[in-house]
């Protein structure tokens, strides 16, 4: 007997009509271009076509020179961050149909040096991430003699788990207004990672991390615009993490 749901899905796929959209793509090569130029491509799309699919379609059939970074295509690697219709998003996680627009403008993310076209240099973000010592700091370890696993209660895990979902895509730094003017600012990504470990009860490196972020271009330069939390594709709330860290520095939280 045929499953009625499968029959329904097949018929909906057959009846779906392919529409077209204008993909307005930023093209810039810092080696020989003086400024960004936009090139328009007409691409057909289905209900499920993502912006990344459309860009790769252009790259395959219309312009092989398009530079785009991608890997997993399922919002896990954080490689395909770009500005889509003015907002930082993951191209693999944004369907054309949900944008409700006939023109899709794709540009490289703000606040990063452009490598080419849609690819930006994320090196500084990774450097500031490393600066936060993104690992558990303590003298003993799970493999030290006479120690066991560091068990945590669900409440203790709840304290930091959402911040551990960060995939380092850099969208938060791209949306941050402080990052746009202060090139030395640590950025919401790094500050959130600092909080991820400060809030972990297994970690003993709180004072080290608080010292790093308590700088003239550190945590105090956040204006709490909250745009970092708005654009995070993984539901992380960097703005909240930053406020919690401030609580630690002001002595409201132990």
């Amino acid at each position, binding site marked *: 007997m045929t499953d009625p749901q499968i029959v329904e899905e097949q018929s909906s796929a057959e009846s779906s009509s392919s529409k077209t959209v204008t993909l307005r793509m930023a093209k810039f090569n810092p080696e020989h271009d003086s400024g960004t130029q936009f090139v328009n491509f007409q691409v057909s799309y289905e209900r499920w076509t993502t912006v990344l699919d459309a860009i790769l379609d252009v790259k395959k059939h219309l312009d092989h020179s398009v530079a785009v970074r991608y890997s997993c295509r399922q919002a896990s690697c954080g490689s395909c961050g770009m500005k889509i219709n003015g907002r930082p998003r993951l191209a693999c996680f944004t369907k054309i149909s949900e944008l409700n627009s006939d023109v899709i403008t794709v540009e490289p993310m703000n606040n990063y040096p452009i490598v080419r076209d849609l690819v930006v240099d994320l090196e500084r973000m990774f450097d500031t991430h490393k600066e936060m010592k993104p690992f558990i700091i303590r003298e003993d370890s799970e493999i030290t003699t006479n120690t066991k696993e560091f068990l945590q209660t669900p409440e203790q895990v709840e304290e930091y788990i959402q911040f551990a979902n960060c995939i380092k895509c850099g969208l938060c730094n791209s949306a941050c207004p*402080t990052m746009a*003017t*202060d*090139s*030395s*600012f640590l950025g919401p990504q790094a500050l959130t990672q600092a909080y991820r470990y400060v809030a972990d009860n297994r970690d003993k490196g709180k004072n080290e991390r608080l010292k790093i972020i*308590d*700088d*003239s*271009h*550190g945590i*105090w*330069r956040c204006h709490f615009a909250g745009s970092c939390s708005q654009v995070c594709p993984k539901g992380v709330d960097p703005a909240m993490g930053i406020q919690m860290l401030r609580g630690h*520095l*002001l002595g409201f939280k132990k």
Partner: protein
Amino acid sequence: MRESIIMKIHYGTALGAVVLVAVHILYRITMMSFGDSLEYENVVANYKFVPYAIMLELILVLLSVHGFNGLRVILLELKQGKSYEKVVTYGCLASMAILIAYGSRTILMTSMGMT
């Protein structure tokens, strides 16, 4: 000085200034009409009343510290660079000291009747 200490001072001076300026404004509008409170004799009388002169001096210090630190923060966000940041920090400190010294001189001279 650590940035967290500077920011604690920044928030503290803001709160202090809000409270004292509120007292100052309430004093202006409750003791007499606002227009009368700006008459020359009444203004000079405020300075001669020592507790009020102390409050004015405190408002001057709180607002200068808060304002110049705010300016420092804005300038640090505007441009970066070691020597630039040093100039901004010491420049703001010096300006703050000059403003407090000049304001204090005015308060002191007026309260001593040297007008």
